[in-house]
């Protein structure tokens, strides 16, 4: 049984400018289940955005493919909503029009009133109400702009929502508020989300599962770390959960050391390179009392 979203043997190479080739990643394979919130974590330049552009259908991989809900991804589609790092709002439209623009594209047979009502509802869900929705993006703060972008994406009910470092350009306080809003809206919608970040705490707060990428070039998705912290999560409470620091340490270790060591590994031909599943759970009773290491259980699938 294939996962809802299946990434299969994805390889991307670019000309390196000196006549040769730069392999960004090779034979990457992983899956995302329906309704899952998956975050991909890795250093800058390892190819996260490249993967996301392929998932969005905005770029073509050198080889390999993406299958979503049984259909191969070919080109962009309304089924895959994208929130870009730089918000990508249309500056000549008001906040409301930026959202109705998307809704009208998604539901062409809706009346104008219905489109506006739907857009207004989603803007309210991210805390944008009243006069502010008639302002142009240039009159909004960075955080508000990203909220509009998130509202636009959720309002379209895509099968898959892709977020490329959506909070990268925001200050820490604003980032926190919008993360909470994202969690809230995601909780209501059962939306499948694939998000890129390089912020460990953000990843733990939001994700069901974190995919860890090794450094580029020739990066790979090395591990899939389950976040064994129950929802609903709250940024102040999760730090007290017994699993929080264990998971966090594992991620810090990976990004600090192992992402370098594991990089450049060439894939074994013909073998499917699935990431290793890592499950860290200190709340589970330990079956093996001899194992004094932190409860780190590696399961290959």
């Amino acid at each position, binding site marked *: 049984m294939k996962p809802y979203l299946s990434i299969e043997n994805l390889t991307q190479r670019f000309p390196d400018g000196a006549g040769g080739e730069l392999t960004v990643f090779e034979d990457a394979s992983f899956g995302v289940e329906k309704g899952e919130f998956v975050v991909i974590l890795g250093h800058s330049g390892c190819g996260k955005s490249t993967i996301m552009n392929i998932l*969005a*259908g*905005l770029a073509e991989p050198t080889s390999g493919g993406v299958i979503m809900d049984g259909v191969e991804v070919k*080109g*962009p*589609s*309304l089924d*895959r*909503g*994208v929130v*870009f790092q*730089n918000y*990508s709002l*249309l*500056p*000549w*439209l008001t906040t409301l029009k930026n959202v109705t*623009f*998307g809704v009208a*594209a*998604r539901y062409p047979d809706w009346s104008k009133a219905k489109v506006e009502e739907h857009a207004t509802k989603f803007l309210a869900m991210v805390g944008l109400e009243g006069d502010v929705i008639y302002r*142009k993006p*240039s009159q909004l703060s960075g955080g508000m702009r990203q909220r509009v972008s998130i509202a636009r994406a959720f309002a379209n009910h895509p099968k898959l929502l892709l977020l490329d470092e959506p909070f990268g350009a925001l200050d820490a306080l604003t980032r926190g508020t919008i993360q909470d809003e994202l969690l809230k809206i995601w909780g209501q919608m059962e939306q499948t989300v694939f998000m890129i970040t390089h912020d460990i705490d953000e990843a733990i707060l939001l994700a069901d599962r974190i995919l860890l990428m090794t450094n580029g070039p020739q990066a790979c998705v090395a591990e899939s770390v389950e976040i064994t912290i129950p929802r609903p999560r709250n940024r102040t409470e999760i730090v007290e959960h017994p699993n929080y620091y264990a998971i966090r340490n594992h991620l810090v270790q990976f990004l600090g050391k192992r992402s370098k060591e594991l990089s450049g590994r060439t894939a074994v031909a013909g073998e499917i390179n699935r990431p290793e599943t890592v499950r860290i759970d200190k709340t589970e009773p330990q079956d093996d009392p001899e194992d004094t290491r932190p409860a780190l259980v590696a399961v290959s699938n």
Partner: protein
Amino acid sequence: MLLVGLLVWEAAIPAQKAVEELTEYERLTGAGAAKAGVPPPSQVIAKAWEQLSNPFYDAGPNDKGIGIQIGYSIYRVLTGYFLAALVAIPFGFLIGMSQVAYKAFNPFIQVLRPISPLAWMPLALFVIGDSEASAIFVIFICSIWPMLINTAFGVAGVREDWINVARTHELGPVKTAFTVILPAAAPTIVTGMRISIGIAWLVIVAAEMLVGGTGIGYYVWNEWNNLDLTSVVFSILMIGVVGMTLDAMFGFLQRRISYVE
């Protein structure tokens, strides 16, 4: 300021001598005829009053109201201009969207653009035959370049992100052109249109001096031939006012469609 300037101008012009004071010699050399000189503002104002109170009179081919003459000029400018826009904007879109089209057409544009529009006049008169149509053609050819180049430039400069927004919303090529590329490039396009209308208004005066018959350019030239400098000064002012109005209209449009990123 303006008032002081006008007073200085008025004072600087020596009053014409009354005919009775002239010597025999002066009378013989024809100085007795109304002397052509730069008219004082008072005369120009009087002329303006006379002309503007009845701008649309028509008393034969050489005596039409200023309103009619300006009307002819505006008609020619707008006809040539809109034909040019009709060609330049879609064509500019094509060149802006496609690297290949840009490379193919750019050399031609670069050669044709610096040609003085009036240099086309003899060819236009020969090929088209009709002086009216030739004047319109000259307007067409001079207003096409700024619009074409600015449209291509504006379209090529539309941010990739906005195009991606259109793509992820599955907008077709036509819808993308109208809902994303056009509004994104509009400020640059309208700047080109504003430059074009300015050039067209400059050129129409010269073109009408050449083809004659009607229009403000012809009127200026005709009044010069009549040695009626008051009318010449008055029409120069009118040319300025009309040009300013045309420019202000595009300035208004420019403010309407501009956006802050």
